[in-house]
């Protein structure tokens, strides 16, 4: 059960956070509002806090210029995804390891078995992305690294 807020704590609250309840600490907001409802002293203190808020709110700011938005968009990394990101999106769309993994493993096993003779293969859920890439002949170009980002 919450205890009632004392007037002293209410004064501390509005001294720091001002007169608007939305800026008061969430955990104390209800108690503060309850005190406000029953205490004329609290309401008087709140009125004075409103004046300080009004001063702060009087500071004008300019909107961000449109060219800033255009510049930042132009400087955003290109939308072409990294090969790993492209694979991750594609793999997720196929259902990931739960659905596509076993099918891929079976296909690779068949292909490897026919091509080089039978040999034990790791289970689909033991594959990591690099292994899948290598087996599928999709290893990244040696000039690309993990942090490759297309320059604008």
């Amino acid at each position, binding site marked *: 059960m919450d205890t009632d807020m004392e007037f002293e704590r209410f004064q*501390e609250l509005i001294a*720091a956070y001002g007169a608007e309840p939305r800026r008061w600490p969430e955990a104390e907001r209800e108690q503060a509002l309850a005190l406000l409802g029953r205490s004329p002293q609290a309401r008087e203190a709140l009125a004075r806090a409103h004046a300080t808020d009004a001063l*702060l709110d009087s*500071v004008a700011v300019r909107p961000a210029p449109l060219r800033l938005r255009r*510049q930042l968009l132009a400087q*955003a990394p290109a939308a072409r995804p990294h090969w790993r990101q492209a694979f991750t999106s594609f793999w997720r769309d196929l259902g990931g390891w739960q659905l596509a993994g076993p099918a891929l493993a079976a296909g690779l096993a068949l292909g490897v078995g026919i091509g080089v003779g039978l040999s034990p293969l790791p289970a689909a859920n033991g594959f990591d992305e690099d292994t899948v890439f290598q087996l599928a002949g999709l290893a990244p170009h040696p000039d690309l690294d993990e942090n490759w980002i297309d320059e604008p």
Partner: protein
Amino acid sequence: MSNERTRPDPTGPAPARAGDDPDQTLLDLIRDGDEQAYGVLLDRHLERIHALAQRMLGNAADAEEVAQDAFLRAWQQIPNWQPGTAKFSTWLHRVAMNLCHDALRRRRDSRPVEDIQPVSGEPGPEQLARRQDRSGRVQAALATLPERQREALVLSHYQELSQREAAAVLEISEEALESLLARGRRALRAALAEELEDLQGKGDGHRHGI
């Protein structure tokens, strides 16, 4: 005046609730190569970060530079973003705050005071103090606050970050945040006593530290 506070690494983890980041979907889309997601992220945060920088620096040109640098760093960081370590908004605010500190330090070290162009376009901070415009006087008073108090006010009052988020950006406890806010507001009231009288009416002589 040297800054005694240790500058935190803005790319490091911050207290956050995992899975509670409203930007996570956008970050995932960006990592998947969705160009439009960049625009949505900008529309969500650019104005707020630009406004933060204006209130910290009182200078439109410097604020634009901070906003640009903050988002350029975001573009670099997003491919490596680890969900659950920090909210993107918290991280972005921290980056912007650190950039503001750097700008303020450079300004102290190199620029003549009269070269600073205030947000409103009026020349010179000395003139700001004498201006009839309330916005200018309040901005000038904000500029006189110790940096930490100004940061706390900007994050809590203007950015309306929660106590938890604002404390995370500043890397302090919520109790310390509250102390900074109380001191900052008290200092502002002292600096703007005449303005307060105008707002409250000249009949009220009470000053209860609110």
